[in-house]
C-alpha cells in the first residue's frame, strides 16, 4: 500500500487510486502500476528522419525512472497506456542495453502493453478492469476510463509541470517519457474531457489542485 509521501490518493470510478509525484498511477486494489506515453526512441526517430541529433540518452533515462518506480511500488502488474515507442521502427532500433532493461522490466512484473497512435502495431487497444477501461486516448461518453496521449501540463507559481487530470468520466495521465512536450491543462480538448475535478501536479510531492483553477 502506497500512501502519503510522494503520492496523492483519490477516488475515481469507484476505485481508490494514487497519483505519484513521478507521473505514474498506482492502483492498490489491483496491485497495478500504470504509466503513459514513454515515447522510447524519440531521439533515434528524429535522427532517422534527418532532423536534429538530440542526445540519445532519453530511453535509458526513461527506463531507469520506470525501474525506480517498480522498486518503490513493487506491483504485481504494470500497464503501459500506449505510445511506448516513438514509432514501430524505434522499437526495433533500441540499443541492446535498453532492450535488455525493458525485457528485465517485463520479466519482473506481468506487463501489459496497450497500443497507442504512434506504435499502432503492438498490443490491444484497450483493457477493462474493475469497471474502468484503460486505453491510450480517452473516448468521450465511454468513461470512466484511464488514458494518456495528451501529455497534460500545468503552470503554478510560474513553473510548468506534467499533471494528472481527474474528472468524473476521465482520468488522464501525464507523459512519463523524457523528451515529451506538453499540452496546457486548459486547452479546449482537455477542458472538454475534464471540465471539473482535480488536477494532481507531479514533482517532489504530488499536489492536488481544484479544476478549473479559478
Amino acid at each position: 500500500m502506497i500512501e502519503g509521501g510522494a503520492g496523492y490518493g483519490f477516488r475515481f470510478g469507484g476505485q481508490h487510486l494514487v497519483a505519484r509525484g513521478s507521473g505514474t498511477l498506482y492502483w492498490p486494489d489491483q496491485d497495478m502500476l500504470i504509466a503513459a506515453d514513454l515515447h522510447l526512441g524519440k531521439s533515434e526517430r528524429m535522427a532517422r528522419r534527418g532532423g536534429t541529433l538530440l542526445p540519445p540518452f532519453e530511453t535509458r533515462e526513461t527506463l531507469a525512472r520506470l525501474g525506480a518506480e517498480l522498486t518503490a511500488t513493487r506491483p504485481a502488474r504494470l500497464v503501459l497506456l500506449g505510445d511506448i515507442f516513438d514509432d514501430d521502427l524505434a522499437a526495433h532500433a533500441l540499443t541492446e542495453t535498453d532492450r535488455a532493461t525493458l525485457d528485465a522490466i517485463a520479466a519482473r512484473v506481468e506487463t501489459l502493453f496497450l497500443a497507442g497512435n504512434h506504435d499502432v502495431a503492438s498490443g490491444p487497444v484497450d483493457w477493462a478492469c474493475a469497471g474502468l477501461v484503460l486505453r491510450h486516448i480517452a473516448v468521450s461518453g465511454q468513461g470512466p476510463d484511464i488514458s494518456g496521449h495528451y501529455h497534460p501540463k500545468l503552470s503554478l507559481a510560474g513553473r510548468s509541470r506534467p499533471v494528472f487530470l481527474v474528472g468524473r468520466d476521465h482520468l488522464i495521465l501525464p507523459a512519463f517519457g523524457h523528451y515529451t512536450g506538453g499540452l496546457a491543462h486548459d486547452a479546449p480538448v482537455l477542458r472538454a474531457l475534464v471540465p471539473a475535478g482535480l488536477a494532481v501536479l507531479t514533482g517532489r510531492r504530488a499536489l492536488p489542485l481544484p479544476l478549473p483553477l479559478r
Partner: protein
Amino acid sequence: MSEAAQALGAEVMPREIAAWFAAQHWQPHPHQLDLLAAQGDVLLMAPTGGGKTLAGFLPTLAQLLQDPHEGLHTLYVSPLKALTHDIARNLSRPVADLGLSIRIEDRTGDTSQTRRARQRVDPPEILLTTPESLALMLSYPEAPRIFGALKRVVIDEIHALAESKRGDQLMLGLARLRSLAQGLQVAALSATVENPPALARWMGGARVVEADPGPPPDIAMLDVARPPPWSGGGGRHAAQDVMDAIAAARLTLVFVNTRAQAELFFQALWAVNDANLPIGLHHGSLARETRARVEAAMAAGALRAVVATGSLDLGIDWGDVDLVIQVAAPKNIKRLVQRIGRANHRYDAPSRARIVPANRFEVIECVAALQAVAAHDLDGEDDARRPGGLDVLCQQILLTACAGPFDADALFAEIRTAGPYGGVSRAAFDDCLDFAATGGYALRAYDRWQRLVQRDGLWHLRDPRAARAIRMNIGTITDTEKLKVRRSGRGGAPLGEVEEAFAAQLSPGDTFLMGGQTVRYDRLRDMVVEVTPNPSRQPKIAVFSGTKLATSTRLSERVLALIGDPGAWDALPGHTREWLELQREISVLPQPGTLTCETFLRGDQACLVAYSFAGRNANQTLGLLLTRRMEQAGLGPLGFIASDYAVLIWSVDPVDDPAPFLAPDSLREGLADWLAGNAVMKRAFRDVATVAGLLQRNLPGQRKSGRQATFSSDIIYDTLRRHDPDHLLLRLTRTEAMRGLVDFGRIEQMLADRPRIVHARAPHVTPLAAPLLLEAGRVRIEGEGAERLIEREAARLMAEAGLADLM
C-alpha cells in the same frame, strides 16, 4: 592619415567623380581620398556624418567607371536590414549622376523568393546584405559562381558586429569569400572605438584610417518641468518638454531603450502634440511596410521627429537631424556618444543632444555619464576581441556542407584565416566537425546517427534534403520567438510582431500598444495574432521586452562615488537630492569602501539587496553565490535580479545577518555544482545549442501543435550533463556562461575593495531598491524555496475551492 595617400587618392579619382563632387559643391574628405587610393584592406574610423559610407563605395564607383564588370563586383554587409534600404537609396543618386548602368539591389530576410532566385542566377553589380543573408547565400551550391568575380567587400558598422557572434559568422563568411574570389579587397567602416588595432586584427588585419573626429558634442540634460517618477517609467513625465524641444528644432531623433518604451513614449508625445507636428515611430517590432513608410517620410523631409530604438541606432543617414533626445539613461557612455553622432550631419558643427532620465536613479546615471563625457573618460572594452565562438563554427561547417562536399584540411586552413578564428586548434575544429557529423555523443549506436559522412576523403551531407533544415536554422541571434500581429479580417494589415511569451498571456479582449495605437486582442490564427484597433481604451499591457543594455563598470563606479558623497550632490536636480535624502533617512547610503546590504519584507517574501556597484556580470555571479548559501541555510531562495549596481534576492525566509553569507571562503565552496545547475547556465546552453544546430528554431507555420510542440532545452541540458558531461556543447556552455558571469576573482576583488559590510533593516522597499524590482532578466532558483512556493500556492487554491481537507 597619410598625406601621400590622399594626394594619390586625388590623383586616381576619376574626373567624372571629381566633377560630381564639384557639382554638389562638396570637397572630398581626406579619408575618402585615402580609401580611394588604398591597396589592400582598410578599417576606417569616422564619426557619423563624415561621409563614411560614400568613402567605402568610392573605390567601387571608380573601378566600375573605368572597367565594365561582369557579375557581382561589391558586396556591402551591414548589421541592419534598414541600413541596406537606406544605402540603396543614397547610392542610387551618384550612380545615376555618373551615368553608370549598374544594378544595386538588397538581399535580406525581407527580399522576395523570386528576387532571391534571380539574384542567384544573375547577381547585380552591387549587392547589399546582412551577415545572415550572406551566410545563406554562401550555403548554396552556386556560391562559387555568384562570388567568383567579387572585387570588394564593404562592412558597415563593424564595431557593432564585432561585439557579437554575428561578427564571428561574418568573419567566417569573409574567409569563404576570400577563398572564392582572389584578390578581394575589404573596407570596414566603424564608429570610434578604444582600440582600433585590435579591431583591425579581428577583421584579419587591415590598415587603420582615422578621420577627423569633429568638434566635441554639446550634451546636457533636458530641462524638465516635472520631476521623474521614483522608479521605472519611460520618460512620459517629460513628454511636454520633449514636444517643446521638437517644435524648436528642425528634425529630432528621440531615442528610447526598448520597444515597449518607444510605444508608450510615442503615445505620450501624441497626447501633447497640439500643433499636430508630423512625428513617426520606428522600432524593430514594427512591420516592414510600416518601417519603410517612416523611413521614406523621413528621407523626404516630411517628418519633424522620429521616436526610435536601436533599429535606427546604427548610422542611418537621415540628413537634417539637428537634435537628438535620449529618453532614459544611456547605460553606456560610449553608446551615448555614438548616438549623439546622429545629430547634425554637417560634421564641422557640434552635435546637439539632450538627455531625459526616466527615473530618479537614472538622473544620477545621467549626471555621472555627462561628467564622464566632459572628462573624455570613455568606457574601456572589458572583453577586447574575444576568440570566435565554436558554436558558430559548428554552424559554419554544416552550412559549408550544404554548399557541397568539402575537404576537412582545406576548410580548417580557410577558417584559420578568419580573424576571430586565427587561434583555433585542429583539435577544437575536429570536435566541431564531429559534432556537426554525428552529434558528438559518447553513445552512438547507429549509422543513421550521422548528418555528415566522409566519402572519398570529402565530407558530404548524408541526406541532401537536410540542407533545408540547416539553412532554416541560420544565424546567431537567439532572440525570443516572435509572432506576427495583423488586423482581424481577411487580408488584415500587418502591424508588427510581439514575443510569443507575450502573446501567450493574452486573453481575448485584452488591449496592448502596437505601432502607436491601442489594439484589442481577438484571437490567434495560424500563428498570427489578430487584433482590432481600439483607440478609446487604455492599453492594459505593453510588455514586450527590447534589448537589454548593461551599464558599464566605469559608469557604475562614478554613480557610487556620486551617491556616497552628499557634497557632490549640487550637480543633481533637487528632486534627486531629496530622493537620496529619503534613502539616507529610511536606510543608509552606499559608500565607496563599504558593501551596503538591505533587508526588508515585500508581501510575503523576504528581500535582500547587496549594493556592490560591481556591474551586472559580477552581480549576477554574486546572486548565484548568495542564493547557493541561502539554499544551504534552508532560507528557500526563490530568485534574484542583478543590475549594474546591486543584486536583489527574494526568498521564503529572511536573512538575519548578511555578513556570514558574504564571507569569501563560504562563497567559494561547492560553487561548480551550483553553477552547472542554474538558470543562467541553462539560458547559455539554449543559445549555444540553437546556434550550433542542436535545437531547431521554431518557425511559424511549421510548428506542430500541442504535445509535440518543443523539446525543452532544459531537459536536454540535464540529460547531457548526466550522461555525457564532457560533450562539446556543455564545454561551450561553460565558456559562454563564464563570459557572461565573472570569475570568482572579480567578486573577491569587490569584497576586498569594500571590506566593511553595512546592514540596514528597512521597514519596506527602499528608494534605491525600488528600481531593481522593475528590472528585466530575473533568474529563478529551482530549489527548496520553489517547492515550498508551489505547495503554498496549491494549498491556497484548494482552500479557496473549499477542498482543504483533501490535501
